[in-house]
């Protein structure tokens, strides 16, 4: 056997062994205990279209995050000015990037300007101007800070969503940031997608606000420091929804970010689930103060601007724990506990893409894909065997190697197999024998010219080489572009296709050649089966 053939065979043997090695984690459901840490563990993942699941793209409303921080600045200024006894008429966020202040006199304005300069140096202050006899000024957030805030909001939203999903319990979720304000979430194999979507997409901003009993909700005349919210209640028997309007103080007494824990508990008396919450030390202190000062009054538990319940404070509550009760089922209580524990989203998110595939369709796709693949392989194998006889069988062997190597590389890369990916593999079955067809036809021509099998073989491979290169590279160019721009299933297609094309070059130019060399190297073969 020539030396060159020897090392080529070894090379193929090594690749075969490697392919099987990398495929082991994919093929066996449980790895044996001796499968050490050095051996590969990555496996071919099934895309969501094959195993079922949900793919979400969410857009974070980052503008709201900026507005939220401006609201905080406004509240903080109110508090500071009050504590310094600087009198003001009005402080509020104005539009999307400003806080406006209206003061009574020029003197206070100067003091306030100085104070703001110390406290919020990065904000741009406008000079004071007259507004209906009062002294007004605005505070504008600078572009860079706003951008930072937006960026941070997306980052925080990502973390919060990850927390929620972890606590909800999904195996192998993918949560990624994409572009400026998009978050991509993939939940494979999820059973109740709608529940998960509700859980992830909820802002979950929790506020405790005092109820303003002095203002009638129907009066239509709500003062600036109050707001009209609605309490929704669902009758458990009829399912009818009733909405009760309630006027509450605009400013929250306590907010959800002061929570440390939230758990589902069952009320022993009515056997009703409720959510028990724990405050941190600051929250506990505030809660203690608020309840002490307002015994007999009502406060509203507000979740995402809907009043959840508005109980009467019966006594001072110290110790920092409280409960949120209402019309809960165990599921809704559990979900509320999860979102409260994981924290609120810094800004609302909007779901802009939702692709959900049920598990039955996924399994169906796998079955059909494999079945189609099998038929495809069979058709090609039979055709090649009939048309090129023994040589055709060698090409078929090359094709089998091709698929094996491709699966091995997909496993080694931990790639994701999608239905179009399976289609690409089936297509490659057809393409992989193409190179051999080109070579065989060339060999037939050389044989017709009267060459010996050995020299016809070599000439065939040599002359076909460039043609094969050219045709593979053009396919590779499109595969690469598809990979760059495709998402999900299409990316899976591109991965399979480009790997397949590269591997095919190897098997058709080296793999099948070696097999021929083995038979023909002595030069004694008189007739070639082609």
């Amino acid at each position: 056997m020539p030396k060159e053939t020897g090392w080529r065979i070894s090379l193929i043997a090594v690749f075969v062994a490697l392919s099987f090695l990398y495929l082991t984690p994919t093929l066996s459901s449980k790895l044996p205990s001796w499968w050490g840490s050095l051996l590969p563990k990555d496996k071919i993942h099934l895309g969501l279209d094959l195993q079922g699941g949900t793919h979400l793209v969410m857009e974070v409303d980052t503008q709201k995050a900026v507005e939220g921080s401006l609201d905080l600045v406004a509240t903080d200024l109110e508090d500071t000015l009050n504590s310094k006894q600087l009198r003001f008429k009005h402080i509020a966020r104005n539009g999307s990037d400003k806080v406006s202040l209206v003061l009574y006199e020029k003197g206070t304005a100067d003091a306030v300007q100085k104070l703001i300069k110390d406290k919020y140096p990065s904000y741009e202050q406008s000079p004071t101007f007259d507004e209906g006899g009062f002294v007004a000024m605005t505070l504008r957030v600078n572009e860079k800070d706003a951008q930072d805030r937006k960026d941070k909001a997306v980052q925080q939203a990502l973390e919060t969503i990850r927390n929620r999903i972890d606590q909800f319990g999904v195996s192998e979720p993918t949560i990624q940031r994409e572009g400026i304000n998009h978050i991509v979430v993939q939940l494979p194999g999820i059973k109740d997608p709608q529940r998960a979507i509700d859980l992830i997409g909820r802002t979950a901003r929790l506020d405790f606000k005092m109820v303003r009993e002095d203002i009638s909700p129907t009066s239509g005349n709500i003062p600036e420091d109050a707001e009209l919210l609605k309490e929704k209640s669902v009758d458990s028997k009829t399912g009818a929804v009733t909405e009760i309007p309630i006027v509450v103080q605009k400013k929250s007494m306590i907010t959800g970010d002061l929570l440390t824990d939230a758990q589902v508990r069952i009320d022993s008396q009515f056997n009703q689930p409720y959510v028990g919450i724990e405050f941190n030390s600051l929250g506990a202190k505030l809660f203690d103060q608020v309840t002490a000062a307002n015994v007999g009054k009502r406060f509203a538990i507000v979740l995402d601007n809907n009043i959840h319940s508005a109980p009467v404070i019966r006594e001072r509550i110290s110790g920092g724990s409280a409960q949120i009760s209402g019309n809960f089922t165990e599921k809704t209580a559990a979900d509320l506990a999860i979102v409260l524990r994981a924290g609120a989203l810094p800004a609302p998110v909007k779901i802009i893409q939702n692709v959900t595939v049920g598990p039955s369709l996924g399994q169906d796709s796998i079955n059909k894909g494999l079945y189609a693949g099998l038929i495809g392989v069979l058709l090609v194998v039979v055709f090649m065997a009939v048309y090129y006889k023994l040589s055709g069988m060698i090409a078929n062997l090359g094709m089998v190697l091709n698929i094996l190597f491709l699966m091995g590389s997909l496993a080694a890369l931990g790639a994701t197999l999608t239905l179009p990916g399976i289609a690409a593999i089936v297509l490659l079955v057809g393409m992989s024998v193409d190179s051999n067809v080109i070579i065989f036809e060339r060999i037939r021509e050389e044989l017709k010219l009267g060459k010996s099998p050995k020299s016809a073989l070599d000439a065939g491979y040599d002359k076909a080489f460039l043609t094969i290169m050219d045709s593979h590279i053009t396919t590779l160019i499109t595969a690469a572009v598809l990979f760059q721009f495709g998402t999900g299933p299409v990316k899976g297609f591109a991965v399979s296709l480009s790997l397949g094309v590269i591997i095919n070059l190897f098997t058709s130019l080296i793999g099948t050649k070696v097999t021929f060399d083995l038979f023909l190297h002595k030069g004694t073969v008189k007739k070639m089966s082609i």
Partner: protein
Amino acid sequence: MELLGKTRIDFIGKRNISFIISAIISIIGIIGVIQVGRGAANMGIDFSGGTSMQLKFSKPISIADARTALHKNGIAKADLQEIKDGNKLLVKMAGAAVGKPSEMVQTAFKKEFADNAFTVESSTEIGPSIGDKLRKDTMVAAFLSLLGIIMYIAWRFDFKFGVGATLATMHDCLAMFAVFYLMNKEINLLFITAVLTIAGYSLTDTVVVFDRIRENLHKNLKGSMKTIFNDSINEVLSRTIVTSLTVFLAAVSLFLFGGEVIHDFSLALLVGVIVGTYSSVFVASPIVVILEDRALAKETKTA
């Protein structure tokens, strides 16, 4: 075994017929592409934005009943399509917002077909901003692939061959658009993927033919362009057909047995493989002949 013995077909001589056929195909294809650009073709929701759901009912359901049920519950505009095996229904609503429509459809069917339970096998909701982005990305992808292929062919062969190969590739892509447009099949991301795949693959045949032509041009400087081209095509005809046949066999099994998700995708591939084979013989080569002849005529004039 040999499918074809030695053939002597005058391919180049038939170029008037083949050009007319190709021109018609291309024009329909261009109309299809324009309609896609205008959003007037049957666009998949991945490009137009909207909601599409696949429902599996326990009993057979007629499209007319389903439509009435949706109308009654306030869903006026929905595309309904029946999938033959297993009482499946495809509901497509273009341009609708994410979230509500899918719930509305489910409530409507639950109410109107209380005795015919269904499960949602898959649902896809895509917001308009994603559709826009995808459309732009796809256009860039298509442009880049074509550019890459043209540059490669122009580098490997000379310019005239590059023109022939490029026109043939574009012809193949347009033919796929033409078929889908005429059959009113959905233009979605998978279709575009199939088109780009064929753009890469259909060149295989063209390259095989071109390689042989180039080889014969070097060997034989006496014969007319037309003879050299015709001889070359005839010489490689059997491999042109066999290579396409193997891929065709694979694509056919995908088309017949691959299931509804990739049914149209495989159809696009099938069309592409067939047209790709045709174009390498009847489009790419004749164009090069015309270009070569023109160049020769110019040379003799100046000489």
